[in-house]
């Protein structure tokens, strides 16, 4: 999941989601980066409308049940 968060983070920061950018972010987080996965991620994101994905995200319905 951290790979996807990395993508979201770069997107939110207005940065381009390149393999180098993703690797930087993940390394900074102390992740042992899997280059193949980064490659697959960046490729898979091509043509994906991230804003749409974010907008269509299911919203949590209510605050977690109060204690």
């Amino acid at each position, binding site marked *: 999941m951290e790979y996807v968060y990395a993508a979201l983070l770069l997107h939110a920061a207005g940065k381009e989601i390149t393999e180098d950018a993703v690797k930087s972010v993940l390394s900074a987080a102390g992740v042992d980066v899997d280059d193949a*996965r980064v490659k697959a991620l960046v490729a898979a994101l091509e043509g994906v409308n991230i804003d749409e994905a974010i907008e269509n995200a299911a919203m*949590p319905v209510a605050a977690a049940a109060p204690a």
Partner: protein
Amino acid sequence: MTSAVETQRKIAPWKIEEVNTLKELLKSKPIVAIIDMMEVPARQLQEIRDKIRGKMILRMSRNSLIIRAIQELSEETNNPEFAKLTDYVEKGAAILVTDMNPFKLYKELEASKTPAPIKGGAIAPCDIKVQKGSTGMPPGPFLGELKSVGIPAAIEKGKIAIKEDKVVVKAGEVVSHKLATVLSALGIKPIKVGLNLLAAYEDGIIYTPDVLKIDEEEFISKIQNAYMHAVNISVNAAIPTKDTIELLIQKAFLNARAVSIESAFLTDKTASDIIGKAYAQMLSLAGKLSDDALDDELRE
């Protein structure tokens, strides 16, 4: 209205007595109504009389005498408004006097009406429909009669049956005599007959059916609308009332919650929601990616 000629003619004693009787009746109760009784069959009239006994007094009489009684009384009591009741005397008029207020009276009279067949030449008060199914009648000329008024029919299982639901006459249209006969034979009673209120007088005001007809559903709706308006403005303008203070608090809270989540500014009450939102966004985006880009946990 008495003309000069009429006053010179000798008036039958019974008529004078009747007018006096009517006048006494008119004076006896605060609410006076003009009723049309033309439609009511005798048996039903008796049923109705039983229902209203004690609550109202009903007296049929000649229209001309009714009119005269009203006018005379109006002059005697110097009450010109009362005389206007004569405008409504028509058909098979009768006088009804009661203590009940005009609205209650109207409601009760409507409630005492019973279903009855519609007569040829009458105007349909609503769409009249025949239903698909057996009429229970053995094969005979009735089959032809049904067809002649446009009702598709056939013999099924040895009985005359109507082949489909059909509206045979629409509201406002005239019912032909043939159709009326058929409908009656089918046991269809589309109209209500009983005492028809033409007008009611109380305390200087004349009420007609359109004013007296209370649509309860509509009224309930109005009450609910008025209540909703009050609640809405109370909350929208932040006018605290006992009934809406909780709602007001909730609205303020929800506004704050929305701003907190939208700005991702975590608070004790919204931290979970914000995390949940970010997680949901991540899932949504992951859902658009191919498998090899995802880790095992996400692949499910």
